[in-house]
């Protein structure tokens, strides 16, 4: 049912721009809109896997919009020379004039620039116009031609989205996490950090929240949750007593993971998505800067989540021991991994000192893990490549929106300036969290990030707004969506244990979302502008 609905809506979305002509949008922009509507519907309703939709976006870009694709292969702009009819007076064919009285000048690079002209005289087939200081004598003879206002890019640009620098950063993060799991580093770190939290149930709850947050800042939220569940659940599940403490434990893990993902660029894919969208505008937020932005927010939210959990599920027992056994793997490969891990994290967080981009470091990390045999071919196959494809699809969508002028056109449909900078940020945050409560966080970020960046670039929203600010607000807002079991995979894992129900999850997850958004907006107003210039 959902499948049929998704397919139909996607198809309708794809066809609409071919039927209706939108004022101010080029022919290529219409194609871009077709692809965008199709992708948005497919991402929302998932008639095909979301990473499949991403590949479809790349393919459609190559097929329909690249200079080697079926539409733009061998096509050239119809040009004519201006025929002078006196001082600054020219005769041009009717079709060379838009209904806004503009002509398109063509420069040496085959780029078109619209120029407003005065009409002196017109008849059925030609128009006499007056225009001053023209920089070229060539104009386009048909303003409705598919090349007007659009310069097709090479198909390779779409393929490069699969190897974008942010994809490399994420690849590094994923392989590092993969290796950490292989040598039980994650589990042993958990054991080591949890120890000082002692035996009081309230402290153990805080310990679980913090440890999961720390682990998930460097590995995927889902993997962090699954790991913690397998460590803690056997101890908790076998207990005879029925205590609200059990609920606090199974909630502390996914919520710690969701919040921890915010802390670093590699913590969760939405972070990568917004960073990738920004990088297309040549805006780069260093790894350490992201941490400086996000970590204080994460710490406050973890403490808030802790307080809320203890209030909602006050433990009745006063002592509890989390018995965990195990020891750090001391094989040479494991030790190599520890060294690579520490160096990577150090280099990532100190980018400001040495200037080597975290994206570059991530690729060195991948290389180091492979050449030292810390990971083998099985581990490489274990990387969730489809997550990288998903992000790449977002990047390709971004290329389409920018190149065809679709992004600017969509953004100009709404008078954003009336909202003011805080109004726009609040709108991003609300749309982000509401959509991702029901949809994949990555998909929400993928659909919205190009728009958020576009609004930032296009509209002058005045004091207190910047392109990066808007994108970061959107990206982080998606991570605060954790009210329902369907909101995030970690939540789904928690509910699958049977120890917590939707109602219990909602009681804690909803307030975390609301407080998180408010706090983030306060940060965006007073703190982030100090760091993001």
């Amino acid at each position, binding site marked *: 049912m959902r499948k049929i609905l998704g397919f139909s809506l996607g198809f309708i979305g794809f066809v609409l721009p071919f039927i209706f002509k939108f004022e101010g949008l080029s022919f290529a922009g219409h194609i871009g809109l077709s692809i965008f509507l199709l992708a948005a519907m497919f991402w929302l309703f998932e008639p095909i896997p979301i990473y499949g939709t991403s590949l479809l976006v790349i393919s459609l870009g190559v097929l329909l919009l690249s200079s080697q694709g079926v539409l733009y292969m061998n096509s050239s702009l119809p040009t004519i020379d201006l025929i002078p009819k006196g001082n600054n007076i020219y005769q041009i064919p009717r079709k060379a004039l838009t209904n806004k009285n503009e002509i398109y000048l063509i420069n040496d690079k085959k780029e078109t620039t619209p120029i407003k002209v005065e009409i002196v005289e017109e008849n059925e087939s030609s128009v006499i116009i007056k225009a001053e200081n023209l920089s070229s004598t060539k104009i386009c003879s048909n303003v409705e031609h598919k090349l007007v206002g659009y310069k097709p890019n090479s198909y390779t640009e779409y393929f490069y989205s699969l190897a974008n620098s942010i994809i490399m950063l994420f690849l590094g993060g994923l392989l590092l996490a993969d290796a950490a799991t292989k040598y039980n580093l994650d589990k042993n770190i958990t054991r080591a950090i949890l120890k000082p939290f002692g035996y009081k149930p309230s402290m153990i709850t805080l310990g679980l929240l913090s440890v999961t947050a720390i682990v998930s800042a460097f590995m995927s939220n*889902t993997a962090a949750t699954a790991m913690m569940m397998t460590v803690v659940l056997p101890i908790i599940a076998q207990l005879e007593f029925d205590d609200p403490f059990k609920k606090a434990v199974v909630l502390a893990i996914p919520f710690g993971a969701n919040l921890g993902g915010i802390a670093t660029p590699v913590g969760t894919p939405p972070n990568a998505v917004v960073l990738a969208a920004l990088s297309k505008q040549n805006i780069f937020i260093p790894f350490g800067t992201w941490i400086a932005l996000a970590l204080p927010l994460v710490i406050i939210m973890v403490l808030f989540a802790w307080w809320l959990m203890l209030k909602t599920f006050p433990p009745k027992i006063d002592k509890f021991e989390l018995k965990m056994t195990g020891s750090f793997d001391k094989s040479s490969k494991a030790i190599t991994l520890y060294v690579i891990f520490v160096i990577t994290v150090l280099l990532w967080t100190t980018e400001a000192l040495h200037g080597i981009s975290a994206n570059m470091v991530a690729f060195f990390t991948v290389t180091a893990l492979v050449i030292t045999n810390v990971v083998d071919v099985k581990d490489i196959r274990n990387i969730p490549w*489809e997550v990288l494809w998903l992000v790449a699809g977002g990047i390709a969508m971004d290329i389409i929106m920018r190149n065809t002028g679709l992004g600017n056109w969509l953004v100009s449909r709404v008078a954003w300036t009336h909202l003011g900078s805080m109004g726009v940020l609040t709108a991003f945050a609300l749309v982000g969290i509401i959509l991702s409560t029901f949809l994949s966080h990555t998909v929400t970020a993928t659909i919205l990030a190009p728009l958020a960046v576009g609004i930032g670039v296009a509209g002058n929203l005045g004091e207190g707004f910047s392109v990066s600010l808007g994108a970061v607000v959107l990206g982080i807002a998606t991570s605060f969506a954790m009210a329902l079991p369907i909101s995030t995979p970690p939540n789904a894992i928690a509910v*699958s*244990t049977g120890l917590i129900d939707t109602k219990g999850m909602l009681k804690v997850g909803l307030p975390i979302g609301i407080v998180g958004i408010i706090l983030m907006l306060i940060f965006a107003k007073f703190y982030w502008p100090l760091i993001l210039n």
Partner: protein
Amino acid sequence: MSKIYILVIEDELEVMDVIVRDLNLFEKFFPIETASNVSEAKRVVEKIYKNKDKVGIFICDHIMPGENGVDYLVELQKDKETSKSRKILLTGQAGLEATIKAINEAGLNNYISKPWKKEELISVVKDNLTEFVINNEENLLKYMSILNASKLAEVARQRIPLKE
């Protein structure tokens, strides 16, 4: 959500009652169904699989009126669906030949001889259900409070999804 049944096939009602009472602690996660002979068992199995549910474990007596237990277990092993189920023979009178057949042709997982100890039965059922969910279920977390938790945790850890 599909249910995983424990199916007990036993012709003596008093014995059946004891088995069901012994296994009572599993009931919340693994509903127990009973049958007093093979043809009744077949009807129950058909109904269970028709509802998209499955039988996690067959606990079967050998000597019963009608078809005997071992022959039935062999039949179950030939079926694509029920070949995945764990199979236990709970009997006092299976001869050597029948037992060999059960092991070789029915993939028998355990043999419990009557009379049995409650702890022994529980432990055998627990181990077999643990194996069953590991081989047939994606989500192992929800069984941790009832089955072999450390074994489930170990396997679940190997299955950690890296994706978001």
